């Protein structure tokens, strides 16, 4: 790891955070160099130059998909003929199981996210922004509410921000629920109070998004990266990383480790360092079996591969994705079939029902997994599950929900084959203690 910068700029996402765990509000934030990126953007840079800086930094979206942020922004129409109003939307619908970094940022450093949104608003010359927050984030919501009030009071939001002539408003929208709202186009429907099914693309959201106006949607952590890139420059951002992909990242570890939680580290930190150093290693008596590296829709990585650098490119080499970068660990006392069943039940429940492969296929996959977990699976069910991985693979459904669900299923069939076979051959879950072994309920088979 690089030596800590005495001014804390080597950890730009958490620099302003208070050691006592309370939210950093405006005074703390300003003391840590907050709103200096916005000041520089408004005073020294043209809007297109801000987008160029973000492009040069190589910043990729932190919500899971990893799309190049600058490239997204550069497709927003600029100039006097651009349709108005234009919007910036912050995706704070952190409902993907195994993702818990946006809560950390919003409840500890809310101004950073707002500053990133305002800078983005300036770069694409937007009129208004929305923070779309999931339900149940009452505490992060209260932090954002207070930060918004402070930002308006000090002139970082509203009319003629810092005397620049640029005006921008941010509204907070609390979701009424459902995981699919985190899909960017479904989120726009949700913001319009439409039923939140995903939208067909094209048109792309930067052409026709919220209320059919040009709209940029980025994740909480993506916006959080923007202020320091603008303040310190693209080359500085790139230098923070251990690999070719620049910057830092909020990583997290959950599961049977000594110290679960979130931590900001250079992009490309190894999974092993994250688990063994920053999370304090496995709890006594537990061995690591596999890792869900970045949310429910990322493929399990086996324990033998944890020396992988956690960046977008390296994670693909171990047949997975960086996703949100928050790890959920599978230990040797936990049934991998049971965990996969839990994941598939989640996706089946949260399918919006719009397209057939997702609506029907996820339910069917979950039933097959339930049969196997409960000891009434058949050997050919494994082939059926494998077929579902193909049927609901990339680009075979209306949005990415079902293909995302197939990623942990595909990996489970590949990595935990022996466990599936044992369930079928023994007619029981080998991980369940004998006394709580559940008899299969009536009609438990999928057929």
């Amino acid at each position, binding site marked *: 790891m690089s030596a800590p910068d005495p001014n804390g700029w080597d950890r730009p996402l958490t620099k302003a955070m208070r050691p006592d765990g309370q939210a950093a509000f405006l005074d703390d934030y300003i003391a840590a160099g907050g709103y200096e990126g916005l000041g520089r953007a408004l005073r020294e840079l043209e809007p297109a130059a801000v987008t160029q800086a973000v492009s040069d930094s190589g910043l990729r979206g932190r919500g899971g998909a990893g799309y190049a942020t600058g490239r997204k922004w550069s497709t927003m129409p600029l100039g006097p003929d651009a349709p108005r109003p234009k919007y910036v939307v912050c995706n704070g619908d952190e*409902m993907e*199981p*195994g993702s818990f970094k946006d809560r950390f940022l919003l409840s500890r450093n809310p101004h950073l996210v707002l500053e990133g949104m305002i800078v983005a608003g300036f770069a694409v010359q937007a009129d208004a922004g929305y923070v779309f927050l999931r339900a149940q984030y009452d505490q992060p919501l209260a932090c954002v509410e207070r930060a918004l009030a402070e930002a308006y009071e000090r002139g970082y939001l509203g009319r003629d921000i810092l005397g620049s002539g640029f005006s921008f408003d941010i509204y907070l*929208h609390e979701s009424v*629920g459902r995981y699919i709202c985190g899909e960017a186009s479904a989120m726009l429907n949700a913001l319009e109070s439409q039923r939140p099914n995903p939208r067909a693309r094209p048109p792309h959201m930067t052409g026709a998004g919220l209320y059919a106006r040009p709209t940029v949607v980025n994740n909480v952590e993506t916006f959080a990266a923007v202020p320091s890139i603008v303040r310190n420059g693209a080359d500085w951002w790139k230098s923070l990383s251990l690999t070719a992909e620049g910057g830092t990242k909020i990583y997290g570890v959950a599961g049977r480790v000594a110290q679960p939680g979130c931590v900001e580290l250079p992009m490309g930190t190894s999974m092993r360092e994250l688990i063994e150093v920053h999370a304090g290693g496995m709890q006594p008596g537990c061995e690591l079996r596999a890792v869900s590296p970045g949310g429910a829709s990322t493929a399990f990585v086996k324990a033998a591969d944890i020396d992988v650098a956690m960046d977008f490119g390296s994670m693909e080499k171990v047949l997975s994705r960086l996703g949100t970068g928050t790890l959920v660990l599978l230990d040797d006392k936990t049934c991998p079939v049971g965990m996969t069943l839990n*994941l598939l039940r989640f996706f089946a429940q949260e399918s919006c029902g719009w397209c057939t492969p997702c609506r029907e296929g996820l339910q069917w996959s979950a039933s097959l997994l339930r049969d196997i977990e409960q000891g009434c699976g058949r050997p050919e069910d494994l082939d059926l599950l494998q077929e579902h991985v193909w049927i609901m693979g990339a680009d075979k459904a209306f949005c990415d929900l079902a293909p995302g669900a197939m990623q942990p299923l595909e990996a489970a069939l590949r990595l935990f084959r022996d466990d599936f076979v044992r369930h079928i051959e023994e007619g029981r879950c080998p991980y369940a203690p004998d006394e709580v072994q559940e008899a299969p309920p009536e009609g438990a088979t999928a057929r």
Partner: protein
Amino acid sequence: MSLSDDERREIDAALPHYPDRRAAAATAMRLVQRRRRWLSDEALADLGGYLGMSVEELDSLATFANMLFRRPVGRHIVLVCDSFACWSLGYAELRAAIQTQLGVGLGETTPDGRFTLLPIVCLGACDRGPAMMVDADLHGPVAPAAVGAILEAYA
């Protein structure tokens, strides 16, 4: 019955955040539910009249959203996270302890109308699993033995 003055005032305060009244429907339903606990047919009719929408339009969203309640609920909402991190950290034992304490299953309300118990997908608190929420308060990690004391605090 129609919307109360307070309900109108809260909705009116949110209207400038949206370009038209229809777009504020989700927020308006959330605000009315906060006062009435759940959205009856009458509540949707009241809102429809105020926002210029049919009950069916509102219901197409209300029936989709897991945090808009179309049936009566208790004074306090207990949410128990059932996603895979919490599942692997003791969800089954936590859920069993809550159900024993309340004497109801998922989706049910205690006979005294005090608690409604609901499943919830990931609370974004995987590092604090197994996690639960009561109203706006996140609790985690929760040992099954601690459930009684946690629920006691909510009259």
